[in-house]
């Protein structure tokens, strides 16, 4: 870095309101104490940081010491001298302390820890994790560097146990979040988070006997380790460099923290209790124990918080009770993929939603939990109810008859006019398993036949069936208010046997028909992958491979349909399709159905040929015969639309 920024902070253990923040240019911001009236200043140094750590020896006078990056000790506010006075550099005067070698250039030291009870005793840590005891401090059993590169980030030391007996323990924090122990008896700690980059900045140990505490990352994330109570991270900003130091103001209840950013930005927060959430909400609860009137009941919950923290996030899941009862639902979120309803909201006022999907009859179980604005999650609350909505009577006598001339399938079903369920939809599936196991395949509504009024005989037409492929149908009777659906009718199957090219418009079933493709239809999809040869060492003799970066899935499928038009009538078909401004359906002899748009130039070329007899009668000197090409781009099939 080239400019000053926050390097260290301290809090008076006897008065948490009294604090100091140290900047790398020796600026000291004091909160709740006398100002700093003397001491070093390095505002004019471009080689920041100059000082890296602070020690307050006397919180009344605010006397203390600074450690510079070379290993020099600096006094302020009248602190007693330590070591030998020196001015190796011509720009500052400092003290050199035995055990902490002074190196006049470069960045060597990063942190220190002082014995709170013995003046002048402590341990300095260099950027490689080397520990340098001074003032008679016990040397650590480990000697030498912990890291080969300058990656040490923080030193935490305990000098005595709770009985006041000497018992040294220490942890060093690495740039990547590793927490490493020194001195015998130091409890092994599993790092709460490990990064592949320089992210960890501070470490606070709250319980040396269990090896518990908190680690801070640059984004402002506060990570508990050992047996420390988890906390949240106000102002956490992924990817931003917003945090430098962390102090635990109160390790007991209420747990409270103070965080300082690189620009001196302060954040103070107190751990709060989780909110209380009740699935179903207050009386009358919803859904009721038995729901008869709708397949989309209101899924309600109540929210309360002792600290009046607002609702920040809600997760709501609904499962079939048969699934929930047979699964380990300690954390329902792990079964999210099996949920019938998976809903989240950040609306602080929302306390319920109508189910976004129709729930089939049977036992249902809702799980809901909420996070408060302090980051605390409530436990999962659950509610069981039974969906018991009367079903309309299923349609009967389903028939499916293929019409080879129009390449359509006529569908009829019989329904009772009386009873619930005022609408009927025909559904199709091309899955060959449909007949064997109709519940295991996906059914799609027949386009334009998915909301037909119920009558004694309901008639629909499927105009999209693939050619030469058996299609299975069923009919379902339903209503929207209340939302109910019958069991499906018995199945019926039809197949359009004539294999040819057919091009029709979706907006007008009268447009289009069989066409004569002049040549086979070629579809292309662009694979958008870029390849570049990058720099290699000049003496590299091995095989050199390029790097490939893709722009994702292949682009849309495009093709050109070249058609030979034999007479005026055929041309009128093509002309109507081209001018229809409609999504087109192209069915080919191979059983594929492609929804597409004609995009681009649409040429018409005259093919010279003798006129037909009827054309001669019309006085035409040449046959009405053309070649035309329709450039097509495939679109999402309507039945797959979101």
């Amino acid at each position, binding site marked *: 870095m080239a400019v000053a920024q926050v390097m260290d902070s301290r809090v008076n253990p006897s008065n948490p309101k009294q604090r100091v923040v140290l900047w790398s240019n020796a600026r000291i911001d004091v909160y709740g104490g006398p100002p700093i009236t003397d001491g070093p200043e390095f505002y004019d140094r471009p080689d920041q940081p100059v000082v890296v750590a602070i020690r307050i020896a006397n919180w009344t006078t605010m006397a203390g010491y600074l450690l510079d990056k070379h290993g020099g000790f600096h006094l302020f506010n009248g602190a007693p001298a330590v070591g030998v006075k020196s001015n190796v550099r011509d720009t500052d005067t400092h003290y050199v302390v035995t055990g902490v070698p002074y190196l006049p250039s470069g960045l060597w030291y990063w942190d220190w820890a002082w014995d709170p009870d013995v003046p002048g005793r402590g341990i300095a840590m260099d950027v490689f994790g080397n520990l340098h005891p001074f003032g008679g401090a016990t040397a650590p059993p480990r000697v030498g560097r912990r890291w080969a590169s300058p990656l040490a980030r923080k030193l935490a030391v305990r000098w005595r146990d709770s009985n006041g007996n000497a018992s040294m323990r220490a942890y060093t924090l690495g740039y990547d979040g590793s927490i490493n122990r020194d001195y015998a008896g130091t409890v092994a700690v599993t790092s709460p988070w490990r990064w592949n980059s320089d992210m960890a900045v501070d470490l606070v140990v709250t319980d040396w006997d269990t090896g518990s505490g908190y680690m801070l990352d640059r984004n402002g994330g506060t990570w508990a380790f050992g047996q420390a109570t988890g906390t949240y991270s106000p102002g956490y900003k992924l*990817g931003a460099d917003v945090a430098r130091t962390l102090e635990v103001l109160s390790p007991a209840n209420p747990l409270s923290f103070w965080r300082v950013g690189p620009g*001196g930005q302060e954040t103070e927060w107190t751990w709060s209790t989780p909110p209380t959430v009740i699935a179903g909400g207050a009386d009358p609860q919803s859904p009721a124990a038995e729901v008869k009137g709708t397949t989309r009941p209101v899924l309600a919950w109540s929210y309360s918080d002792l600290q009046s923290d607002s609702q920040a996030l809600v997760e709501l899941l609904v499962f079939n009770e048969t699934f929930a009862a047979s699964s380990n639902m300690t954390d329902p979120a792990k079964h999210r993929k099996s949920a019938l309803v998976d809903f989240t909201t950040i609306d602080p006022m929302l306390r319920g939603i109508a189910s976004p999907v129709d729930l089939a009859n049977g036992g249902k179980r809702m799980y809901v939990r909420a996070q408060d604005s302090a980051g605390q999650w409530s436990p999962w609350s659950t509610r069981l109810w039974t969906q018991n909505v009367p079903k309309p009577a299923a349609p009967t006598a389903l028939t499916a008859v293929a019409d080879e001339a129009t390449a359509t399938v006529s569908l009829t079903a019989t329904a009772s006019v009386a009873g619930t369920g005022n609408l009927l939809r025909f559904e199709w599936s091309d899955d060959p398993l449909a007949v064997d196991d109709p519940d295991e395949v996906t059914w799609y509504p027949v386009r334009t036949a998915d909301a037909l009024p119920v009558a004694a005989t309901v008639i629909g037409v499927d105009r999209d069936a693939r050619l030469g492929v058996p299609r299975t149908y069923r009919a379902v009777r339903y209503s929207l208010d209340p939302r109910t659906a019958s069991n499906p009718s018995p199945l019926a199957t039809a197949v359009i046997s004539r294999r040819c090219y057919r091009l029709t418009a979706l907006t007008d079933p009268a447009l289009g028909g069989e066409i004569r493709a002049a040549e086979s239809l070629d579809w292309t999809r662009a694979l958008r992958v870029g390849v570049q040869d990058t720099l290699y060492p000049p003496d590299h003799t091995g095989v050199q491979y390029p790097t490939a970066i893709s722009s994702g899935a292949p682009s849309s499928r495009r093709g050109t349909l070249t058609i030979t038009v034999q007479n005026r009538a055929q041309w009128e078909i093509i002309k109507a399709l081209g001018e229809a401004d409609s999504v087109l359906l192209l069915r080919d002899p191979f059983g594929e159905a492609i929804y597409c748009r004609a995009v681009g130039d649409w040429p018409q070329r005259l093919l010279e040929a003798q006129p037909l007899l009827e054309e001669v009668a019309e006085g035409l000197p040449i046959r009405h015969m053309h070649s035309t090409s329709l450039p097509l781009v495939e679109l999402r099939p309507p039945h797959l639309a979101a």
Partner: protein
Amino acid sequence: MWGWSPEAWDLLLGGHTAITRVDVWHSGKHVYTLAATGGAVQAEAGSPVSRSLSGSLIDPTGQLSRGDAGDLLNAYECEIAPYRGVRLADGRDELCPLGVFGLTGKTITDSPDGLTISLTGQDRAMGYQGDLGRSVAISAGTPTEVAIRQLLTTRRPGLSMVTLKTGFTCGPLYFGSDMDAWGEAQKLAQSAGAKLFHDRSGQLVLALAGALSDRPVARYAEGDGLLLDVDRKEDSDTICNVVVAENADQSIQVEVADMDPTSPTYSKGQYGRRVYTLKNPYFSSVRQAQQAAATRLAYELGRSETVRFTAAPNPGLDVDEVVTVHRPRAGLVDRGLVVASLDIPLNIVEGDAWVPMQVGCRQSRLAQDGRVLDEPPELAA
């Protein structure tokens, strides 16, 4: 560097599937998503407008009409938020924001292939550029960061600013109604050795000037499959190794110099004294002028070596971050460099080649010889 997940980071170090997205915001909220077919986001450290956008966009759904696009991209209502990222192995996309931009120009072309929208934009600084509109009086002893906020509030009431504690005060000051709010705020920031900019999420930030990272956030080296080419330039003539900072009446005047005897631009050495004068009317103390001068000196010394390189895009990289470049044949041996300018492309592939990012760098002053941190001698206890 953007906080990529380890999985995304690993992908960015080699071949991958890149994803881009361009969101349209109204009143700070997402209203529509367009797809980018070309263009780039440019970032430049130290520029009054730190980020700018030029892009060609299409409507991937094909649902947008020309009139819809005109309403959607109404320059007085909309902001553009481009993203770029990677597709993870499980199919999820991890995206990194590249800034939030107001429109400075747009062209909507309707052709048989659909709508093509060409945009140019600048970051939210453009909203603060212009007359204050009313006179502003700053009382004596006002923290510099508070004064900056007061100035900018005239252009955008209720603004949100993430700010450092400068530790310096200013005032009494009087700003006439015709003074440029953003320009004066920039000067106030400079007086404290700070910079005022909008970050990649569109947040207004007053932060310390200079490198954003203590350690390199990325390494580009021959043989890594990322580095395409390198261009290195040395300047041994125009570099100033002494900065004199002074206020308007020269009642405050300080000098900060390259005092490192090992530096090729050592102010007492053969290179001689080359003085840059930093004038700023808002210096209110010697310390403040020293800090601003030290910041400027670090910038000046960094100009002694500039490097431009192109590489596989990492959209998480940002200006003022430190990277290392290793290309010994070009005289760069794990050289620490500060990113000064950056072009992140919005189109991924052009022809049969991926589009690289372009990075302009200056020397890092984390160490005088340009390396990030020296390998020190073993310390003896």
